[in-house]
């Protein structure tokens, strides 16, 4: 549904995107992840027809964005980063404008009503956009992106600048949309990808450094598994006992709480789940156990690791 083939973009002497290829199938929801300046917005601007690539091709819904930019743009709903809307228009007026300028074929009035309902804007129909809060403006931004029922949704940093409650709302809205459209969203916040995406493309300095499912990526790069324990015992003794458990490589004291409990980080030699064995050992000793959880490396750490590996190459 979204296809990029050896895509590059130069700004004068600066290469912002360097030979990127990917393929997103219909109905998928994919995250573009990378630090600021890694080329996320540039890729999105090529995919939305804002400008043409320096080299390579890209297409949306099978329509090439260079050969038939106008045709391809009909299939795209786009939420730019820090979306700018005409502040003097009201919500209904703006969405009607958006539907008409994108050649929406059906009953525009009905469609605008439906979209406002879906995005929680129905009670704001007559509100002037310039007077709305950032969270509501973002909803209008998403509403304008979907009002013409595009096959592809491209969302650039959809939750940036929102408060935690609004972030949850926008994420669930995106999740609902994913069933009907193919979604590509960008973010520099890692939990966002795991919260909303099925697949992730990791970018650094304009290059694609990794591409996988969020889970697959975790499996591929995490060679060791760790467990977090909190128990009431003598730290040195607990460490000595737990190090003797089969499969344990090391035990590290990570903290001592004022209630007398100690926190330990246990690392396994192989990718095995240590928690059952550890819990068995601890209960045999009669130590009160407060917490025992497997610790999967977070996407954030993983991301740093991938970038470090990339630099090492």
């Amino acid at each position, binding site marked *: 549904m979204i296809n990029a083939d050896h895509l590059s973009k130069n*700004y004068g002497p600066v290469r912002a995107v360097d030979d990127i290829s990917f393929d997103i199938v219909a109905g998928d929801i994919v995250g573009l992840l990378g630090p600021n300046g890694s080329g996320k917005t540039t890729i999105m601007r090529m995919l939305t027809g804002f400008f043409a690539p320096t080299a390579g091709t890209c297409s949306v819904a099978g329509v090439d964005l260079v050969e038939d930019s106008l045709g391809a743009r009909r299939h795209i709903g*786009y939420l730019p980063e820090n979306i700018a809307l005409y502040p*003097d228009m009201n919500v209904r007026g703006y969405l009607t*404008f958006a539907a*008409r*300028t994108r050649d929406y074929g059906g009953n525009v009035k009905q469609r605008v009503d439906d979209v406002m309902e879906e995005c929680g804007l129905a009670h704001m129909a007559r509100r002037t956009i310039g007077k709305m809060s950032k969270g509501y403006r973002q909803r209008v931004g998403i509403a304008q992106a979907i009002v013409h029922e595009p096959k592809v949704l491209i969302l650039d940093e959809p939750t940036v600048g929102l408060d935690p409650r609004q972030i949850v709302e926008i994420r669930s809205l995106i999740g609902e949309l994913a069933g009907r459209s193919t979604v590509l969203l960008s973010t520099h916040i890692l939990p966002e990808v795991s919260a909303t995406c099925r697949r992730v493309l990791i970018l650094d300095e304009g290059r694609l450094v990794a591409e996988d499912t969020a889970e697959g990526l975790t499996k591929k790069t995490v060679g060791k598994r760790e467990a977090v324990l909190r128990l009431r015992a003598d730290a040195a003794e607990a460490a000595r006992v737990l190090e003797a458990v089969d499969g344990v490589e090391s035990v590290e004291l990570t903290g001592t709480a004022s209630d007398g409990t100690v926190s330990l980080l246990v690392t396994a030699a192989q990718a095995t789940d240590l928690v059952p064995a550890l819990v068995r050992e601890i209960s045999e000793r009669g130590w009160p156990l407060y917490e025992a959880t497997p610790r999967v490396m977070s996407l954030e750490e993983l991301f740093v690791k991938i970038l470090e590996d990339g630099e090492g190459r």
Partner: protein
Amino acid sequence: MKRFAALLRRELRGFFGSPLVYFVAAVFLALSGYYFYTDLNAFITFGFGDSIVEHLWQRLFNDIVRVVLTVIPLVTMRVYAEEKHLGTIELLYTSPLRDGEILAAKYLACMCVFLVLLGSTVLYPAMIYYIQPFDLSQLKAIYLGLFMLVSTMVLIGIFVSSLTRTQLIAAMFTYGVVLLLWNLSWNEAALPTDLLGVISQLCAYDHFEPFARGVVELKHMAYFAALSLLMVFGTLRSMESRQWRGRR
């Protein structure tokens, strides 16, 4: 067609939904009314001759043009600069709209503003005509000339606006170009005689003045048409510059 109508409505809203156009119109109408009153008075007092009315219109519309030229940059400055500043242009560029359509909608919206302003000046000759009917051919030429002059200057303003994201810079630069074009040959004595021919061909005043006398000639129309085409070309290239500049 539907999408162009939606685009044009949005552009018109940008003008008539904001107070600026009403202030501009108020000042324009006050000044043109003042010119009408004083010019008429002058001709009643001193302007005896065979063609009082003809001279009155020539004088009046040369005065009105000065006000129009002052107003043009204030109307055109926002056209692109505001959208670039706000960022709204990005959604226009990624909608299935041709650059030409966007430009056409912006141009037509500007011309609607001037249609209202210049249309209101019809009141002055209409009043005289009511008292004493006269031959309208000169006035037809004047309004044709006014339309071509204003249309060209609007396109200059639109082009300049497409180059910047700061409205005041767009306005000031447009003033510079518009006033220079209008006054290019004003001091004939200061110009070398061999250059005078060239410069007066470039001067907007020299091409408008025949219209004010009631003379419609193709070469003067061609001047405005050529300059307009040049500005349309420039604006489309400026819109295209996002391709290599990488920003809106």
